[in-house]
């Protein structure tokens, strides 16, 4: 296969030998790919910046035996604002790891790519409340994988959940009305938090910029998302631990 062009976000990278890197990319055209970037760790190398975490880069790739090979690359957006703020950096890192865990190799998913790029841009615009972007992205990513939590009707009885004594079950995958029996994992869900989650699930970029909600509701949404993701992918997202450690004591989604 001759060299081909692909635009991708760097989700992960590991060092190879003295100066090379293996990068995991989420590309718009080809889905998730793994590629060798030769010389990327040499000082002053142009591909160094282009293969940094959560950088959006235009690549020329060639298919190798087991990995793609980077022949050229040019940074399109390095998101400098996300590298200058610890909270934003931790969130961008987490978004990349989540996207990595929720995608399969060589499975084109332009929607997921667009969501990720948009989330990286939006983090800076919502530096006031970056978790609005984070949880909206989590909801949209889950829904692109077919794991969208049920937020319309009660996931047990199918009835209108109403507004009283609601809860959210990560294992049943959605909201429960006050009349239905709750599993052990049910998280109490104020109706305002359910409303916030519904708005997040369908918000476009402008919608995410405009999202408003109480900090306490945002934390509840965070808890619902954390346990849903843990249940769906059956393993921890490592960067979540660092992100949680940065939150004020007791404010984490725990």
């Amino acid at each position: 296969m001759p060299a081909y062009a692909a635009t991708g976000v760097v989700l992960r990278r590991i060092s190879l030998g003295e100066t090379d890197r293996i990068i995991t990319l989420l590309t718009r055209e080809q889905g998730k790919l793994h590629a060798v970037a030769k010389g990327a760790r040499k000082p002053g190398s142009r591909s160094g910046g282009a293969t940094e975490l959560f950088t959006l880069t235009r690549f020329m790739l060639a298919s190798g035996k087991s990995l793609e090979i980077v022949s050229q690359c040019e940074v399109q957006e390095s998101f400098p604002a996300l590298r200058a703020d610890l909270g934003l950096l931790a969130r961008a890192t987490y978004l990349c790891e989540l996207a990595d865990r929720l995608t399969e190799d060589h499975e084109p998913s332009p929607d997921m790519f667009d969501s990720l790029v948009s989330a990286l841009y939006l983090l800076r615009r919502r530096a006031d409340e970056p978790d609005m972007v984070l949880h909206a992205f989590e909801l949209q990513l889950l829904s692109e994988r077919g794991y969208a939590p049920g937020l319309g009707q009660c996931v047990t009885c199918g009835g209108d959940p109403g507004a009283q004594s609601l809860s959210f079950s990560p294992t049943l995958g959605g909201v429960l009305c006050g009349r239905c029996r709750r599993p052990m994992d049910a998280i109490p869900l104020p109706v305002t938090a359910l409303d916030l989650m519904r708005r997040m699930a369908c918000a476009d970029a402008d919608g995410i910029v405009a999202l408003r909600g109480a900090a306490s509701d945002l934390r509840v949404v965070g808890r619902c998302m954390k346990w849903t993701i843990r249940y769906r992918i059956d393993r921890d997202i490592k960067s979540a631990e660092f992100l949680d450690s940065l939150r004020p004591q007791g404010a984490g989604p725990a």
Partner: protein
Amino acid sequence: MLHYARPLARLVAELEKLPGIGPKSAQRMAFHFLRAPHADAERLAQAIMEVKEKIVFCRECFNFADQEVCDVCRSPKRDGTVICVVAEPRDLMAIERTAEFQGLYHVLQGVISPQEGIMPDMLKIKELLPRIQRHNTTEIIVATNPTVEGEATALYLVRLLKPLGIKVTRIAHGLPAGGDLDYADQATLISALQWRREM
């Protein structure tokens, strides 16, 4: 399939475990030792054993040392009011080679790496605080790499130390010496602009 005599095979197998050494290089090195004078081989073997037996981490700065405290920390000429924080002993050595820096060092023994699960408490970060007090340190220079992990570590130190009234600076990174402006990528140019200085 040709087999080496057992001792030779063992040496090749050990050499192959070295970083950056493949089977071909391992074989070449093994044949080299086979031909080399006995004394050369012995010196190498002894040097390896000596490193294993004598090198410890400095209890002050966590640099490599052959005593409890390393040469830099022991030197009366060094100025503890400025401490340069690095990730690894090899970074300390790189700065030390410039002979420009007269302060002390602090080796974190790694960087914060959220994706690898390397958390701040796994590094020598808390050990920095008593040193700052003891030396009346006024400035911490963070000399980690300009990678996401290096930046995360630098930003974490700022968050930790700024409230204590300590000046935290970051080494400048931008265009490499002898580099070409036109060739630099966006990230490099942005940091070069950010870290500009008055002339």
